[in-house]
């Protein structure tokens, strides 16, 4: 039996900015049977999206398919002319993008975009297409299926757009569907709903396709088979159960290990009574002009108090928009709160960083999520690390040089990287430099704002291990902000759950199995598990879902 999709010896080349050509897909073979969903999993740069796109005979700007064949339903997508490719795209093979918010044209009504495929390929009358679209909206459990299509993309939420993108892909009943990280940009509670919707339409329409993701737990819910990729090569292929339970390749094992980080034996509970390093008292932070009652137009953090003991870690979790990053900026003094105060080491800190003395500034450091934007692209690693050394410690050249080497050793970067600029480093290396810069100040407290979110699972796990190790050596305390619950669970002694600017609960990692607040319950139960039956067995109280999800 020949399969629906046959990729043979696919080779794709990319041209770098400096004009060098590198092979990013190196002879990949892949088969997809009728009605089968195959997941492509791997870190960023492993070529998973490139392979998925090749099914449509498409390579992004700067990339070129240089060899091999991609047969989809008997047509070689590589060899077809541009016009013939266009005839297949959307009709036979459809694409569900990673960010539906960006993939919808802001100037066109949703319905017109959903049925555009029909308009282009003329597969059915438009009236019929509109009716079908509404049926799909209903099947994807979108609200107001009759009228949601009349809105513009900015008028619906991210989770809804993602499902609308699926409707857009399904409208012409394609044979093959490509899901390109379709839930990566969503909050976990929203992700559950979207995954459910995808799963039901996939089985209802017996769709075959590719599901690209870096999240093994998500893939486990949807895929029949998993292909593990690295550096443009297939490492391992197997059924979902095989890969999850009997991974053969070391890289797969590494990936699996990174998903379930080992939970350290926490220090004894008596330490909880340890001396407070940071105390945040009823802090409220907002944006925009102050109104007559002294409150800003938008209140992002509302009356939050928390306490971090010396040498201990506090996690702050919550979904996007809950105010966790704003709180971090308020503690660091970047965004002064309009009410409440911050006490550090027994002394009240100025609300704004401008009102703090250099020593206070030195002791509280913040590390930002995107090392790409936090590091000056024109400076070398040496400059980046040397600046806080001169600023806080007034170090002279020789001393500074020695300290930079030490710092690089601490974050486990080779000393040879000293003279490189950020653009010449990998994502994980950049984040380490970013972290070393905070260490250079000799702080007592480091606020980590989503520092692992932009990293691949394996790299993120390594960064977390590094954080733990440095904590043991340097007696640091961390405020660890993340939307990734497993990361927080792995490193923190206490966890604060935030929702819409409020602190709703504080729990310990041990208590995460039985949280008290309904939102925490919903949030924790929404985190995908590696168990392929997790989604089907997941029962969430619809009342809770309605109350807390802005789907």
């Amino acid at each position: 039996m020949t399969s629906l999709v046959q990729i043979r010896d696919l080779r794709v080349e990319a041209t770098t900015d400096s004009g060098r050509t590198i092979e990013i897909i190196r002879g990949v073979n892949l088969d997809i049977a009728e009605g089968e969903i195959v997941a492509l999993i791997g870190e960023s740069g492993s070529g998973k999206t490139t392979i998925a796109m090749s099914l449509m005979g498409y390579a992004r700007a700067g990339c070129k398919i240089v060899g091999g064949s991609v047969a989809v339903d008997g047509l070689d997508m590589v060899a077809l002319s541009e016009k013939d490719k266009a005839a297949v795209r959307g009709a036979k093979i459809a694409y569900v993008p990673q960010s539906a918010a960006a993939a919808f044209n802001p100037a066109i009504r949703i319905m017109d975009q959903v049925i555009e495929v029909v308009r282009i390929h003329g597969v059915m009358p438009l009236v019929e297409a509109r009716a079908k679209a509404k049926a799909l909206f209903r099947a994807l459990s979108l609200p107001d299926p009759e009228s949601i299509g009349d809105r513009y993309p900015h008028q619906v939420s991210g989770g809804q757009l993602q499902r609308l993108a699926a409707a857009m892909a399904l409208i012409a009943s394609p044979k093959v569907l490509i899901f390109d990280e379709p839930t990566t940009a969503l909050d976990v509670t929203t992700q559950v709903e979207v995954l459910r919707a995808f799963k039901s339409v996939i089985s209802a329409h017996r769709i075959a396709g590719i599901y690209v993701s870096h999240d093994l737990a998500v893939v486990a819910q949807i895929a029949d088979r998993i292909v593990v990729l690295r550096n443009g090569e297939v490492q391992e292929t197997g059924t979902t159960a095989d890969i999850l339970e009997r991974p053969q390749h070391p890289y797969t094992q590494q990936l699996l290990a990174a998903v379930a980080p080992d939970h350290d034996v926490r220090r004894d509970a008596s330490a909880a009574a340890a001396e407070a390093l940071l105390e945040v008292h009823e802090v409220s932070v907002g944006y925009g002009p102050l109104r007559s009652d002294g409150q800003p137009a938008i209140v992002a953090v509302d009356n939050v108090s928390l306490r971090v003991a010396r040498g201990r870690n506090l996690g702050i979790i919550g979904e996007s928009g809950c105010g966790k990053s704003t709180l971090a900026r308020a503690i660091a003094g970047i965004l002064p709160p309009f009410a409440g105060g911050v006490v550090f080491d027994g002394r009240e800190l100025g609300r704004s960083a401008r009102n703090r003395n250099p020593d206070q500034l030195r002791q509280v450091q913040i590390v930002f999520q995107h090392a790409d934007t936090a590091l000056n692209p024109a400076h070398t690693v040496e400059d980046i690390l040397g600046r806080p050394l001169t600023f806080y410690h007034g170090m002279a050249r020789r001393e500074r040089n020695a300290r930079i080497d030490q710092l690089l050793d601490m974050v486990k970067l080779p000393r040879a990287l000293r003279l490189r600029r950020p653009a010449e480093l990998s994502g994980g290396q950049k984040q380490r430099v970013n972290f070393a810069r905070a260490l250079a100040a000799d702080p007592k407290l480091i606020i980590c704002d989503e520092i692992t979110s932009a990293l691949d699972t394996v790299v993120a796990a390594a960064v977390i291990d590094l954080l733990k190790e440095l904590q043991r050596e340097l007696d640091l305390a961390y405020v660890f902000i993340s939307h990734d619950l497993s990361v927080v669970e792995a490193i923190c002694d206490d966890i604060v759950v935030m929702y819409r600017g409020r602190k709703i609960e504080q729990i310990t990692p041990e208590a995460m199995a039985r949280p008290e607040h309904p939102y925490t319950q919903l949030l924790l139960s929404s985190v995908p598990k590696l168990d392929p039956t997790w989604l089907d067995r997941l029962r969430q109280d619809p009342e809770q879902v309605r109350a807390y999800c802005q789907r």
Partner: protein
Amino acid sequence: MKHRIASLVLARLAIALVTAIIVSFAVFFATAMLPGDTATILLGQAATPEAVEGLRKAMHLDDPAIFRFLRWLAGVVHGDLGVSYANNMPVAKLIGGRLVNTLKLAGLTAIIAVPLALTLGITAAMLRNTLYDRCLTIAIIGIVSVPEFMIATLAVLLFAVYLNWLPAVSFTSEIRTAYDFARAYAMPVVTLTIVISAQMIRMSRAAVVETLNTPYVEMALLKGASRGRIVLRHALPNALGPIVNAVALSLSYLLGGVIIVETIFNYPGVAKLMVDAVSTRDLPLIQSCAIIFCFGFLLLTTTADIIAILSNPRLR
């Protein structure tokens, strides 16, 4: 949302009004500061001091500047632009016919230049980094670098002097047939088209290229949309704001910036009138011409901004 659009548009109009008042103020005082006493200029060197004094009184020249400004502004609002010093004719009458000529030239140039420039700009964006795009870019940079008097003079030399195809100056009064019309307007229109197209081509190319790099355009491609559909339906509506702005800026140049072209071709437009007014120190006429140029500019940029507001789907 409708309410928000209305308030944004009203706010924009209010800004335009405030700008208009400030501009009138600036124009009035800038011309008032010109050296020389109007009464002396009018009466000539031989006038007796009494006569000069009398005239100053009659023309309210001794009043504080702010009163003169308000009186003049009130006149402008009522369509009374004052009386020309040079030939005692109402300024409105002097400008009237010239303005029609200027608008004729501007309109004709716009009709040719705008579609031409947009087509070239958009096609260059579609075929970016091809030979076509590169040649166009080089040609445009070349044209931008050549000043318009150079282009105009070369055109006169070539078509009027050597080839003898066209008249060197545009006698608009002698136009009877369409052929006459074409002959009279050909050179000024071509010169102006070249001058204003360059910027429009560059700006529309840049705006369209930017939208062509967006994920929703990639999505349209992956839906199987044709190139034309991608550009016309997906890219262009989102590039409209910057394009309209570039067009408005270029067109506003046609209203006030054509002094050189009108002078070279001896075309009887407002800009030429203003140049003549400067040489005769005809203050009311200079003020009126300047005000017309400024208001034209203001009208075009305001219109462009309002179109940009209306075309933004997020405000619908």
